[in-house]
Structure formats: structure tokens, C-alpha cells
């Protein structure tokens, strides 16, 4: 499978990149790791006349630990994120999810920015970031804006981004809770290297007294046109003690299933996807509750 000819551009700064984007508008696509884009170009699904390589932009692959937030540059690769101590400690669910993307070779080139901008409903980095209330920074040649990631995805393969805009960085707020825990589970057709059929991220925290659950967040991929939160399911578990929450998990799982609108496709039926959401919400919730309340799971 050949790639159709195109004109190649490269930039060393964001500013330079944004100027090039502004000039070529809809004629140009940006390429980061290329693991989604080159595939689409080989399959002739996307045929850009111009390509702008982002990989030579200096210093956009950082993970910065700041007092109240963690900042991840759009070009950070999954292998770097998954093994980074700050992410493993502060955003375990994201380390887990990025560590499950593709194979080692894919994680060494594929970027978190590419994963989000490609906007697959099953993109593995999306549910963890939704559950952690992450923000994204979008830049164009005039200014930068900061948005909740929940507003970023607009449908399968589409986002808020205009052709002359770049995703610059992802911001994960740090919570002030004394104790928090989170987990990610994904179902694939094959073991190992595959896109998620369903992905579930579960996050929870302990309140001041250390006795009740708060800030429960459940996010799911592969079960709706975009990655989504399960707000009703979260409410079912909020403010409960360990014993009450554990009993309530099956009800929360049902509420999470109710929030999905999965499709039947070649990879799985809608019914199967719903069943898996039910199972995975129960499993991730149990795991997180056991960690939070120091129980042996």
C-alpha cells in the first residue's frame, strides 16, 4: 500500500507550525507519530496535499509536575507516559491505559495528542482523562484557550479543533484529597495488541473523615459516538461508606450501562458491549474501593 505524494513541511516551534497551518487551511494535515494518519493515508481514507511534521517541535513532549497540576505536552509518547513516575503515582489510570495502547513499537512513536485528536470513540487515553477532569490547551496563531476535555470530542473521528489549530497540552488537576485511587480496564478481541472494544476508567477519593467516597468519576470508551462519563452511576456511589458502596456497585454498573449507546459492528454486538461495561464497572469499582479503604481485594 503506497502513500500518495504530498508536500512536506516541518516546524521547530509551535508558532512556526501555527503559521504554516493558517496558510494552508484545509489543504494540510499535521502528523505526529503517524500511527493513525499514515494508516489512513495508505488506505486512501485521507489524502492530504500537504503534511506538517510536528515531531521536530522542540520541547512539546514534556511531563511537568506542578504544585496544582500535571502538564503533558501533546507530543508525549505513550511509552513515556506509561512509565513516568509522576503519572504512575498521580494518574495511575492514565499510566495503565497508555501502557495498553497497541504494542511496544506503537507506544514508542504514538503520541497522546494524536490519540485524542484522532478521536476514535475507543481511544484509550480518553476515559482516564475524562475521569480525571483533565483540561486541554488549544492553540492557533492568535491565541490559546483552555477547555475541559469533556467538550473536546464532537463525534466519531471529530473534535472541536479547527484546521488551523493544534492541541498543545493536556492538564491534569491534582486533587487535594488525602486519598485517591483509580483504575482502567479494556476489552480487546485478541490479547495484547488491539483497539479497545470497550474501555472503563474508574476514579474515587475519600472525604475528610476518611470514611466516605467522594468525587467518583466513571468514564467509558467504545460505547457511544464519543468517550463519555456515566454521571448517574457516579451519583449512586457518592457519599457512601465502604460497606454501602460495595453493595451499591451493581446498581451503579447498571446505571453506567444505561448511559451507553453502543453500536453493533464487525468486532462486537451492542449487547456484548453493554454486558462488558456492566462487568468492568463492577471490577474497577471494587478494585478502587478496596484500595481506598485498605481492604484486601
Amino acid at each position, binding site marked *: *500500500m*503506497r*502513500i*500518495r*505524494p*504530498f*508536500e*512536506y513541511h*516541518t516546524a521547530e516551534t509551535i508558532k512556526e507550525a501555527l503559521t504554516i497551518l493558517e496558510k494552508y487551511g484545509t489543504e494540510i494535515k499535521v*502528523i505526529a507519530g*503517524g*500511527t493513525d494518519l*499514515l*494508516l489512513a493515508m*495508505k488506505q486512501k481514507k485521507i489524502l492530504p496535499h500537504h*503534511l506538517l*511534521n510536528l*515531531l*521536530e517541535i522542540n520541547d512539546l513532549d514534556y511531563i511537568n509536575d506542578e504544585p496544582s497540576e500535571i502538564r503533558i505536552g501533546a507530543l508525549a509518547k505513550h*511509552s513515556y507516559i506509561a512509565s513516568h513516575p509522576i503519572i504512575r503515582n498521580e494518574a495511575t489510570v492514565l499510566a495503565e491505559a497508555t501502557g495498553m495502547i*497497541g*504494542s*511496544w*513499537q*506503537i507506544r*514508542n*512513536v504514538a503520541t497522546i495528542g494524536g490519540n485524542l485528536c484522532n478521536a476514535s470513540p475507543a481511544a484509550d487515553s480518553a476515559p482516564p482523562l475524562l475521569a480525571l477532569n483533565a483540561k486541554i490547551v488549544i492553540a492557533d496563531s492568535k491565541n490559546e484557550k483552555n477547555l475541559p476535555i469533556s467538550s473536546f470530542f464532537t463525534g466519531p473521528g471529530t473534535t472541536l479543533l479547527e484546521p488551523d489549530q493544534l492541541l498543545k497540552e493536556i492538564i491534569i488537576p491534582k486533587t487535594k484529597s488525602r486519598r485517591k485511587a483509580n483504575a482502567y480496564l479494556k476489552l480487546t478481541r485478541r490479547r*495484547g*495488541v488491539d483497539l479497545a472494544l470497550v474501555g472503563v476508567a474508574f476514579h474515587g477519593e475519600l472525604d475528610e473523615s476518611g470514611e466516605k467516597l467522594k468525587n467518583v468519576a466513571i468514564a467509558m470508551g467504545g460505547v457511544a459516538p464519543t468517550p463519555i462519563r456515566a454521571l448517574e452511576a457516579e451519583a449512586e456511589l457518592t457519599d457512601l461508606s465502604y460497606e454501602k458502596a460495595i453493595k451499591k456497585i451493581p446498581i451503579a454498573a447498571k446505571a453506567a450501562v444505561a448511559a451507553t449507546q453502543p453500536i453493533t459492528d464487525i468486532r462486537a454486538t451492542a449487547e456484548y458491549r453493554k454486558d462488558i461495561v456492566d462487568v468492568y464497572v463492577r471490577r474497577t469499582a471494587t478494585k478502587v474501593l478496596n484500595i481506598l479503604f485498605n481492604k484486601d481485594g
Partner: protein
Amino acid sequence: MKIPLTITVNGERYDLEIKPNRTLLDLLREDLGLTGTKKGCGLGECGSCTVLLDGEPVKSCLILALQANGKEVLTIEGLGKGKPDPLQIAFVEKGAVQCGFCTPGMIMTAKALLNKNPQPNDLEIKEAIAGNLCRCTGYNKIVEAIKSCAASTKR
């Protein structure tokens, strides 16, 4: 329009001019004649095109040659320069090669693993080579071969 590209392959520096739509795999196999690296699916799935880019295993069919500008590439030919690498010997001795199509990619991934983690356990080996498909061996002998090199590098 061709674009200049500077790339080091197996220790040798090349200053080339190349069309932007060529992948790193096209460059290696067709322009440099290094056909040890195999082209299987061309879609990032099978791992037969695995090479090391600045020491990290990558799938060369899904990277533009120009995106490797200024970088160092190691292919199976560079690994076996002069005398075979211990991994190559182990693959032969343990019967980890049947048709051999997956072998160069498999060995490059294994090499990167052993560079990072000289004493990997079975699970770590299996996770590392999860992106390298083999239709022939059933993987057991491949894991064995990699493991035998881990042991033989022990001091």
C-alpha cells in the same frame, strides 16, 4: 519534490534526497538495499518491519523516512555485522526460526528488550514481543531463545 534527509543506518551516515511519501521501511529496503527488514502487513500490525530508532523498537512501515531525520537506525544487518549476535545464534539453536519471515523483527525487539532489561522474565518477554506476530513457531521457542540470551549475559 525531494527533501534532504540525514540518517545514520547501522553506524553509517547517509545524506540523501528523498520523496516525502516514502516510509522508513521503503528507504531501508528499496533505497539502501537492506532487505533484512521485512515488509509484512504494512499496517503496523505484524512487527516484521521492526527496527531500532535511537535504540527504541518501532514499526518502520508506519514512519515516514523524513520523520527519522537526524536519527540513528539499527537493522538486523547492523546487529549481525562481523559475527552473529548471541540472539541470532540462540534463535537458530533453539529452533525459534521456521520460515524466518518474522525473525529479523522479532530479534530487533528482543535486542531492545535485553538492552533495557537484561534479565526479563517470561511475562516481560511476551509483553515485549506482543507486537511481533509469528505464524509458524507458536512463540514458545522464541521466548526460550530470548531467555537463553538473558541467562548467557549474566555475569
